[in-house]
């Protein structure tokens, strides 16, 4: 591959990397949301029992 081809590929890969990074960060956020829902459900059930 010539140098310019390498750079063009790098550009495309950067775009892909950023999008995938976003997906990874978002999945962290989703698991945090899941945890919160679980906590709040527990809180609500405790409330109802009391």
């Amino acid at each position, binding site marked *: 591959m*010539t140098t*310019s*081809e390498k*750079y*063009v590929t*790098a*550009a*495309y890969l*950067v*775009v892909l990397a*950023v*999008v995938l990074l*976003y997906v990874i960060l*978002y999945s962290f*956020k*989703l698991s945090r*949301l899941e945890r*919160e*829902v679980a906590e*709040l459900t527990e*809180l*609500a059930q405790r*409330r109802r029992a009391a």
Partner: protein
Amino acid sequence: MSLRNNRAVLLAAAASVLLVAGLTLALFWAPEDADQGFSQRIFYVHVPIALTAYACFGWGAWKALRLLWTRESRYDLESYTAVHMGVIFGILTLVTGSIWAKISWGVWWTWSERQLTLFLVLFLFYCAYFMLRFSVESGPRRANLSAVYALFGVALIPVSFLAIRLAENFIHPVVFTRDGPQMSGSMFFVFCVCLAAMLGLFASLYTNELTGKRLDARLRELREALE
């Protein structure tokens, strides 16, 4: 609720298809440029991303205007998400633009590239948007301040562009000659597919991000109600 979910899934699917199609076309099918050769293909990634970033800021400003108009709080989250996406696409524009500069002229940054300079100014402006949001308590005050600032942003775009053009008269850049893209029909088609792909990506990411932020807000309300 399931209708909204379906829309999100459809958007994501459409964006994925367009992205794969666009990138494949750009790398394999599009005709080789006579002047610049293979390196011209970065154009199919850089310019659609730049245009999408502008679309993000424009969308954010529109939602900001709706907020100030109707005072409905949902527009705050929508405007914020759009600006957030705009900054992400802005970073990508700067990075791909820098790579393009490296390919074309051998330097990682050049002030003579007007679009790039404009994006740098806008990037600084919208980063300050986040500083503003983080230093104000959440509520209608923060929503109003963010909305006004987002509107100033879109006013800044043409004014900055004019300023950068005027600045070239006394800031003597190293003059790089570059032939404007003489796009053949098939090149234009590939460009349009890539543009649609990037806009689709924005729409899809925007929808997901917005859902996530709304969920966050509702969970916080729930927590406050229960504790």
